[in-house]
């Protein structure tokens, strides 16, 4: 599903290149559950962002479902993103002015779905994640764990094939974290490909495969 070839990413710092990603080669199959691990500043999030089309590498090739993503035009890339990817953030990033229901609905609106379709999908999501009773609450009225559940529901609303999660449990206590991880596991079993960035060995264990990153380079896959 995903094929990264010789990906480089650097910043120009006072004349010298400071590499964030260095010659990354990575292959991820459909249905996989990959955990990216590594110390702070090793380039985990950047790698995730490159995969999630939120960031561009300076060099290298990226094939997503056999499509040369980096050669695509911005519009096409956005369409690809919209239809295939969901993003979960460490600090949830729900929109404060919107209710739980509306937060989940937002990506569907951007996809130009009709209100009837949206209603059905959002209802399904609320039901699936057990948050029907919270649909009219605003993010500030929820606990961190609950917010992250909404964040995941929102990411999945567009029924993506790939779910990207950047430290999804980083701001949660261990019990909430476990709940989120078991949710991920379940989703993966249902067929969603998942790539997560994490610090925690325990969370990484939920995945099928661990990718270790150090100073922007992959270590023995």
């Amino acid at each position, binding site marked *: 599903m995903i094929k990264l070839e010789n990906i480089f990413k650097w910043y120009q710092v006072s004349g010298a290149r400071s590499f964030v990603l260095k010659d990354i080669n990575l292959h991820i199959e459909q249905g996989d559950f990959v955990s990216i691990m590594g110390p702070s500043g090793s380039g985990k999030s950047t790698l995730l*962002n490159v995969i999630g089309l*939120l*960031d561009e590498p300076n060099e290298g090739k990226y094939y997503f479902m056999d499509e040369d993503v980096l050669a695509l035009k911005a*519009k096409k890339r*956005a369409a690809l*993103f*919209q239809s295939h990817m969901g*993003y979960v*953030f460490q*600090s949830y*990033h*729900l*929109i*404060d*002015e*919107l209710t739980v229901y*509306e937060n989940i*609905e*937002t*990506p569907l*609106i*951007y*996809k*130009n779905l009709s209100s009837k379709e949206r209603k059905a999908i959002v209802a399904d999501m609320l039901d699936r994640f057990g948050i029907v009773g919270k649909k009219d609450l605003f993010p500030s009225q929820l606990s961190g764990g609950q917010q992250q559940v909404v964040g995941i529901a*929102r990411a999945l609303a*567009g029924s993506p094939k790939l779910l990207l999660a950047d430290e999804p449990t980083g*701001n949660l206590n261990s019990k909430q974290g476990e709940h989120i991880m078991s949710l991920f596991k379940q989703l993966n079993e249902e067929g969603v490909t998942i790539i997560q960035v994490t610090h925690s060995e325990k969370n990484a264990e939920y995945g099928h495969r661990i990718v270790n990153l150090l100073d922007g380079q992959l270590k023995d896959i």
Partner: protein
Amino acid sequence: MIRHFFKTAIRHLSKHKKHTLLNVWGLALAIACCLFIYTFIVYQLGFDRFHRQSDRIFMVVKDLKLEQLEHSKGGSYAMYTAIEKEIPQVEHVTLYMDKQDLTLKINNKLFKTEGKAAFTNAIYFDILNFPWLAGDVQQLNEPNTVALTKGIAERYFGTTDAIGKTIWVESQHPVTVVGIIDDSRRNSDFRSEIYFSLASVKELKGIKEDGTFSNWGYTHTSNNFLMSLHQSNAKPLVEKSLHDLVAKYWHKDVLEYYSYRLLGLPDFHFDKDYGSGTQKSLLLILGSIGLGILGMACVNYINMISAQQLYRSTEMGIRKALGGTKKQLFLQFTIETLLLSLIALILAWLLFFIAFDWANKYLFLADPIQRIPLGSSLIISLLLWWGIAILTSIYPSLFLKQLHIQTGIKKLALGRWHITQRTLVVLQNSIALLLVTGTIVIVSQVRYLKNTDKGFDRSSVLIIPIKSEMWNQKEKISNLLRENPAIISYSFCDNPPSYDKVWGGTVQFDDNAEWETWAPRFAIGDSSYLRTFGIHLLAGNNFNQDMKNPQFLINETMLNKLGYTHAQDIIGKNLMAGGLNDQHKGKIIGVVADFSTHSLNEAIAPTVLGYNETRFKNIAIKYAGTASSRLLNTLEQQWKILYPNEVFEYHFYDEQIANLYKKEALLEKLIWIAAMLSITISTFGFLGLLSIIIARRTKEIGIRKVLGSSNVGIFQLLAKDFVRWVLIAFLISAPIAWYLLRKWLEDFTYHITLSWWMFVLTGIIGIFTTLLTISFQSFKAAKTNPVNSLRDE
């Protein structure tokens, strides 16, 4: 989708209530200001343009060719009848004698017409569009008839149903009301409230059979000839025919001095020479001020949005990560802007209505402006609304273009916006400070005009206007005034110094064969004139009151104009003053110090002082100290006994002089309001910006406090930027203000000089209001406990 955007927009606006309020109020004030100025400009530009064939309506004006051209309007009755009969290109012509002062008696109550009366005939209503609500226009061709406007009928009779009722003119002549006229159109310079039939002018004004109706030389400025031509391009032909008529019926020599022109009626309002001289530049200034203020409010809005980027960038980043396209995000911003400016627009209309009524009550007093039709105000509102929305959407769209999801989400998207922002803030404050300096200078100049007496003393003088038929009691009045201990001096006179209407005429000096080619002004009064108005006699003696052996005083300018430097040399010379005393040659027996006969908008002219009792129109009374109200009471009692059929009317001389500067005073008030508005709006801007700056620097403030900074130190930290902005704005505005105001002042014959304190005061006002504005919030921020601000999420 749109519904979703609306919902988000409303929630967003209500979440940031403070910013929304500041933005809405700022925009509303600016829009209201624009609506008001627009209404004012449309009203002024629309003067006499609403008549059916306004492009074919003209009036006759004339130039007297002396050393300088002397412009005037009006003519003689004889000329009017000749035009009517002998110029075929003229479709209609009427004589409209306006600004008539008569005393009317209605149901035993006395009313003064206060210049709102006129004499004319039915043709007037063919030419000008003032529809009759009741009555037959043709009846105004009959003698002893009158037509009233709706407003005046209500005032006089308490009802508009006044047809057939009787008005007693000067308590002697009964006239019948034959028509009620619609007065909803007010922007005309040729409009009266009370129209007496021209056929009764002789009887009502008590004109003796002395040539008023037949002599071509009996011209008067209030004898307006209004005419409509069959074709507007016949104008030069009609002008030529006028000259022919003058040569044929009057004298061909007259044409050596006079030339006649037709002035388009709509041009009258802005014509400086013949007309009411409304300055188009005033409209231009107002228009620029309106746009400037609107610009300031937009700057506020843009600044607030750009500063909100701190919060918005995260939101926008998330929305992008959720698949929102730039177009969709932009639409969201636009809807938010449209919504906010719509609220502002509605509020602006409310403010406008309030301001409009207020202005007509207190600002424009004598000539209230009228509302523009709803249709065009809706169009202008729509234009303003969309204009603001587009203008204020430019920034967010730029911001969206630059926004990277990554940096957005991480709240790093502060970018370079603060450079633009700083420029905008400085620009905005420059406009505000420009207006402040403008206000200081204009107020000073108008004060100067109103309060400077050139060569005379205005204090403690009352002016009582007197009609010619009241002079038969002159001796009795004299006795009353002489016996009153509160009166220091009194003078029967025509024009006091600094008056709006001043006579003049050419003179024949020292038995020269030729008359001079320039016309001095006349100050006509009795021998107490000098004492009453405090005019200094430099040499010679005061003049006598003998019309058969006239004696004249001249001023220094006249002395020099005649080629003399020493007053003694000219005393005793002969002088024939045409118009002052046409029968007898007189002698110059003294020279007075220069004093202004006009407003200070004109330089002091050569002036002759002399006695001519047929010209007297006023009694000027110099009274002692502050006893005016008791004196007035006494005078009114005595007046009623002498003239039971007259209203006792009086003016304080200083107020009468202030009235000469109505246009300048209006500008003074308008610029005052504009300056206040602009300061308010820039204050709003500062308040909004400050709250965002504080939000952004909360952590920094906390750290600085932990490191030992005092509250005052924090305040200084926050205030520094604002003070710097104001100072830069001041440096920008000062030279522009200096240049513009110097140009403005140059148009005045007598003006103040720009001085440093006006600019320093502007700076102080700017800095003071800024510090005042930011002090409360800044101190609050400074006093926050750093424990709270440094606590992480």
